[in-house]
C-alpha cells in the first residue's frame, strides 16, 4: 500500500527538492521509517531524541492533523495524502521553567549551544547527545563529599533534572571537602545550599530537593522519578536500600565510596549484578569505620566523584565502556588504580536467579545485627 507524502520546502533539501513522494506503509510510523530509508536523515528531522514526534512538527493525513487521529499509529489507506509541515509556534513565554525539559525534544537555544559548545563539538556528544543530557533525570543520593562534585559536574553538563536527597544540615567539619557548601551555609539544610550553588553555576538545571532520609517507605517513590541514580550515601543501611530499590525499579546505579586515602567506584546496570553480588552482607557494626570516625582525604572526593559523574554522562549518552562489571579501586596514597572484575552472582538474594528479597526490608536491622559472610573490604564513606 502506498501513500503520497507531501514535503514542504524546509525539508525538500532532504528529498532532492521533490515535493511529493510515494511511500509504502500501513501507518504513519511505517511511512516515516520508509521515508527515512529512501532519504536518510528524515528521521532525525522529524523525530526527537526520544523517538517521539515533537510538537513542532505537524503531520497530516488527508488534511487532518494526526494528533487529532491516532498519532504515529494512525492507520493509512491506499492513496491517502500525508503532509509534513513544521509547526509555526513560539511566543513571549510566561516563564522558562519548561526550557530544559522541552529542549530535550527540540532545538538547543543559542545560549545552550554556546554554554555546552565544548561538549557539543565532540563527535561522541554532538547536539543530539547534549539534548539527551538536557532531557535526563538523575538522582544524587547525598549532598556531601561525593554528592558535591558529582552534582556539580552533572549540573554544569546540563543534566535537565537533578534530584538531591539529603536530610543533613551543613556543619563546619563538612567544609574540608564538600564543595557544594560554603562558610555561610553552616546550619542550613544541605539540599538548600546545594540547590543554590548548582543554580548559580547553571540556571538551566531543574534541581529537585528531597529533604528527608531515604527510607524503605519513600525510596521507591523517589527513585522511581529518575533515570539514573548516583550513590553518595555515607552508611551501610542506605547503600543496601539504594541498591535494592534500584534493582527492583531496574535503574542503573553509579556507585562510589571513599575512606582515608582509598576510593571505590563501579556501575550496576539492571540485570548485570548489584551491590549485594559484591557484598552479600554488611560488615559487623563497628568493623568498617565511617569518614567521621577514620577521616578522609578531601581531594579524594573530587577524584571519585568525577569518575561517578563521567560514568553517569556516559550512561546518558550511551557511549564508551561503562564500569559495569568492574570495580575501580583508587589508592591516593600510593597513587595506584586497580580494576577488579565483578560478576553477577546467580545466588544473589535480590538480583539472582531465585531472589528471596523481593521488596524493601528494614535496613537498620539488616546492618545492625550480626551477619555472616561479612566483607570488611566494603567501604561506606562519602
Amino acid at each position, binding site marked *: 500500500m502506498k501513500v503520497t507524502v507531501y514535503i*514542504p*520546502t*524546509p525539508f525538500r533539501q532532504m528529498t532532492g527538492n521533490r*515535493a511529493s513522494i510515494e511511500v509504502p506503509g500501513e501507518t504513519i510510523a511505517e511511512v516515516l521509517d520508509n521515508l527515512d530509508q529512501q532519504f536518510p536523515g528524515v528521521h532525525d528531522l522529524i523525530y526527537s531524541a526520544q523517538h517521539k514526534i515533537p510538537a*513542532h*512538527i*505537524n503531520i*497530516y493525513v488527508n*488534511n487532518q*492533523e494526526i*494528533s487529532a487521529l491516532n498519532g504515529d499509529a494512525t492507520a493509512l489507506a491506499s492513496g491517502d495524502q500525508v*503532509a509534513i*509541515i*513544521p*509547526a*509555526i*509556534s*513560539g*511566543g*513571549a*513565554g*510566561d516563564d*522558562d521553567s519548561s*526550557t530544559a525539559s*522541552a*529542549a530535550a525534544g*527540540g*532545538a*538547543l*537555544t*543559542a*545560549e*545552550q*549551544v554556546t554554554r555546552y559548545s565544548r561538549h557539543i563539538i565532540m563527535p561522541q556528544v554532538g547536539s543530539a547527545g547534549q539534548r539527551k543530557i538536557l532531557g535526563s533525570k538523575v538522582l544524587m543520593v547525598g549532598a556531601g563529599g561525593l554528592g558535591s562534585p558529582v552534582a556539580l559536574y552533572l549540573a554544569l553538563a546540563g543534566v535537565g533534572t537533578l534530584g538531591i536527597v539529603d536530610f543533613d544540615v551543613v556543619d563546619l567539619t563538612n567544609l574540608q571537602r564538600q564543595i557544594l557548601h560554603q562558610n555561610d551555609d553552616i546550619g542550613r539544610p544541605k539540599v538548600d545550599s546545594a540547590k543554590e550553588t548548582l543554580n548559580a553555576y547553571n540556571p538551566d538545571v531543574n534541581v529537585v530537593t528531597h529533604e528527608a532520609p531515604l527510607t524503605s517507605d519513600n525510596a521507591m517513590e523517589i527513585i522511581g522519578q529518575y533515570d539514573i541514580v548516583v550513590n553518595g550515601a555515607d552508611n551501610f543501611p542506605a547503600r543496601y536500600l539504594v541498591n535494592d530499590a534500584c534493582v527492583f525499579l531496574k535503574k542503573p546505579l553509579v556507585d562510589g565510596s571513599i575512606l582515608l586515602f582509598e576510593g571505590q567506584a563501579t556501575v550496576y546496570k539492571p540485570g548485570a549484578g548489584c551491590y549485594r553480588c559484591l557484598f552479600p552482607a554488611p560488615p559487623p557494626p563497628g568493623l568498617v569505620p565511617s569518614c567521621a570516625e577514620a577521616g578522609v582525604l578531601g581531594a579524594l572526593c573530587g577524584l571519585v566523584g568525577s569518575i561517578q559523574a563521567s560514568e553517569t554522562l556516559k550512561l546518558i549518552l550511551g557511549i564508551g565502556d561503562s564500569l559495569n562489571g568492574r570495580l575501580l579501586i583508587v589508592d591516593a596514597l600510593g597513587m595506584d588504580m586497580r580494576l577488579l572484575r565483578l560478576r553477577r552472582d546467580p545466588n544473589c538474594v535480590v538480583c539472582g536467579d531465585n531472589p528471596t528479597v523481593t521488596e524493601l526490608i528494614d535496613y537498620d536491622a539488616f546492618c545492625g545485627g550480626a551477619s555472616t559472610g561479612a566483607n570488611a573490604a566494603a567501604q561506606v564513606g562519602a
Partner: protein
Amino acid sequence: MLTLPQSYVDEMIAHAREDVPNECCGIIAADGAGAAAKLYRALNAEASPYRYNVDPKDLLRIYRDIDDNDWDVMVIYHSHTHTEAYPSPTDTRLAAWPDAYYVIVSLEDDATPVVRAFTITDGEVTEEELAVS
C-alpha cells in the same frame, strides 16, 4: 535585508492590536522575485498572551495556497504584547523555519509599536534590517 511595503507593516500592527490580550500570528508569502505577495492572518490555536501556534489546519491551508502559487514563506510574524520585539527563548527553541524571516510586533509601548525582523537558525538569532517601501 527584508523589504516590506508599509501596508504590510500596518496590517501586522493592526492584527496585533485586534488580538490583544493574546498574541497574534500570521504568514507573509513572497513571489519568485522576493516581493511580498500576500499576507495571511493565521489562527493562534493557543489563544494565549504568552504563546502562539498557528492552528495546524490553518497552517496546511495557508501553506498549500503558498506552494500552489509557487510562492515561498517569506515572513512568519507574531506579536509580543508586553515584552520587547526580540525572540524569546520559546521563540528560538521552536523556530523550525530557518529560511524565513521572523518578524515580531511589540506592543510593549502601546502608543508606539515596534516591528523588528530576525532569522533564527539552529537556535541562533540574527537581527535583519527591515526596510519599509
